């Protein structure tokens, strides 16, 4: 290598440095994905031949459409609720009130635990014999209980929000804190009361932060696997449906599973691309 001109040598070194990363990316992501796609097009159990029947049957069946609808519903509901929760929280957390360090660390907790355990705990708390219902029974007896959230869509959405709202909260908070305080002061001096400042100045300016955080929440909610597996009951979003195809059937329905997986991946990418377009459009403004 010493005999190569130095620019060539530079380029070669860079390539070598990037090699492990590329190996991981292509070997552990792209190639498996391709395998998944190929498998999705093969008849079950065969090694040759092409067919689209699994795509067709899934997309046209009532079951398939229901599953897709459920996945989107959960993801969108989670994202909306996360935004509704995150904005007020961010506005509160940016002031240095007593104990703000502690309260800022609290939303970090769902990020560092596996969804499985979060789901477990939430099932225990909000189950028909859990503390939440005990609370209703003892403290607010006028609410007819018990309120059962286990294995319902409401419960599932609640669990999703619990796990994934921190993404939205953290980006919103950091955008909020990055705002020039002079701008809010200027708005006040111009005569705007706190609500008007919020509506006309603060919210428009933190919108990019809210949006980028909500993308993360959406993505996680869309692809969530362990929680619906454990707490979804009869409600199976796409990810669980994939797994069931392999788990419940002997021999496993690999091709069907792969086709659902590909559909899921495509939808995720499509949504992301659309969302990024919207975000970029906003930026140009």
């Amino acid at each position, binding site marked *: 290598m010493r005999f190569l001109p130095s620019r060539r040598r530079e380029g070669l070194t860079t390539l070598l440095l990037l090699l492990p990363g590329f190996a991981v990316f292509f070997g552990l992501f792209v190639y498996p994905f391709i395998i998944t796609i190929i498998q999705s097009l093969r008849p079950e159990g065969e090694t040759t031949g092409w067919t689209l029947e699994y795509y067709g049957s899934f997309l046209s069946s009532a079951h398939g459409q229901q599953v897709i609808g459920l996945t989107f519903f959960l993801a969108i509901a989670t994202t909306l609720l996360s935004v509704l929760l995150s904005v007020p929280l961010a506005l509160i957390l940016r002031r240095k009130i007593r104990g703000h360090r502690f309260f800022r660390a609290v939303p970090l907790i769902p990020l560092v635990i596996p969804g499985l355990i979060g789901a477990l705990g939430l099932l225990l708390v909000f189950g028909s014999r859990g503390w939440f219902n005990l609370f209703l029974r003892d403290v607010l007896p006028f609410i007819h209980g018990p309120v059962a959230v286990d294995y319902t869509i409401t419960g599932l959405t609640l669990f999703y929000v619990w796990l994934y709202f921190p993404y939205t909260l953290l980006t919103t908070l950091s955008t909020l804190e990055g705002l020039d305080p002079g701008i809010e002061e200027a708005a006040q001096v*111009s005569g705007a009361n706190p609500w008007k400042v919020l509506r006309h100045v603060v919210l428009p300016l933190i919108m990019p932060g809210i949006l980028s955080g909500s993308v993360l929440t959406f993505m996680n909610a869309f692809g969530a696997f362990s929680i619906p597996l454990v707490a979804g009951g009869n409600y199976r979003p796409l990810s669980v449906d994939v797994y069931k195809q392999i788990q419940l059937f002997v021999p496993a329905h690999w091709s069907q599973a792969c086709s659902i997986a590909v559909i899921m991946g495509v939808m995720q990418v499509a949504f992301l691309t659309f969302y990024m377009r919207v975000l970029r459009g906003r930026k140009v403004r």
Partner: protein
Amino acid sequence: MSEWMIELKGTTKRYGMLLANDHIDLRIPRGELLTLLGPSGCGKTTAMRCITGHQRPDEGRVLIDGRDVTDLPTHKRDLGMVFQNFALFPHMTVYENVDFPLMIRSLPHEERRQRVTDALRLVRMDELADRYPRQLSGGQQQRVGLARALVYRPSVLLLDEPLSNLDAKLREEMRFEIKELVTQLHMTAVYVTHDQGEALALSDRVAVMKAGRIQQIGTPREIFEQPNSLFVADFIGLSDFIKARVEAVETKSVWVAVKGLRVRVQTEALLRVGQEVTLFIRPTRVDLLEQGAPAGENVFAARVLKLTYLGDNIDYRVVLPGDWEIRVQTNGQQYIPAGSSIKVRLPAKFCHIIAE
């Protein structure tokens, strides 16, 4: 209608152990442009923020046009404010920025359009009404800030170091524009700056602050010619200080001894013989005379130690008998090389006594 447009009555503000404002008393009449001048940390920004309402004084009251506004939130005080870093709304155009206060007040559309256009025309930004702040230069942004502050015709305009983020030449131009606008619109204005040149050029009165207190208030001339303390004398303009002792007291003047030389000072201060004071004179007020010039009151022999050529001025260090070094500044017309023997005159009317 009150006699004073803005009043601070004994306002005090503490940040933990730090006393940012120490019982400030300030009265600003209608139509005056008063500057709060001082080094960083002197409390001038805190005092302004008490007027705007962004800070609440721990003690004392704030009055605007005779009304006690100490408990009134900022958005109800009807003030105009221009910020150091402009604080324009980045997500709104120039037009929308200036329209914002009117939109908040729910004025009818036609009137809003008229007023915004007028305001923009006043600051000569009407052509750029559709631009966004990030597309504007610093000077342009500051003019938009001015327009936004003036469009709802507040009676008071506050300016918090508005020119600090602009380059030197622009600063001078904008200084003039601001003064013109404020005079033209008969506004009362409070200006905060650490730049004494700006303060002297713009203000009707200057309040020099140090460590939370107002050291001296007066017209630029009073502050410059008759500083009441070493701090003010040193902060404004160039100064020569030297310790002196009062030797004789007359009706309107005083004789002091400095290193064996007798200097007459025109002053009405009450001093006693034997009192230790500080004599001070501005380097630009010292006269340089030829060696052969006739002797006279406050005329002393001197020798030029060194000089620095500054273009418009020449800065001399001269030494008088008794090792008394004085700094003298003249216009560039007189060039006296180092080592020359000359005479200097310290005119009595330009000498000052500071007794502290």
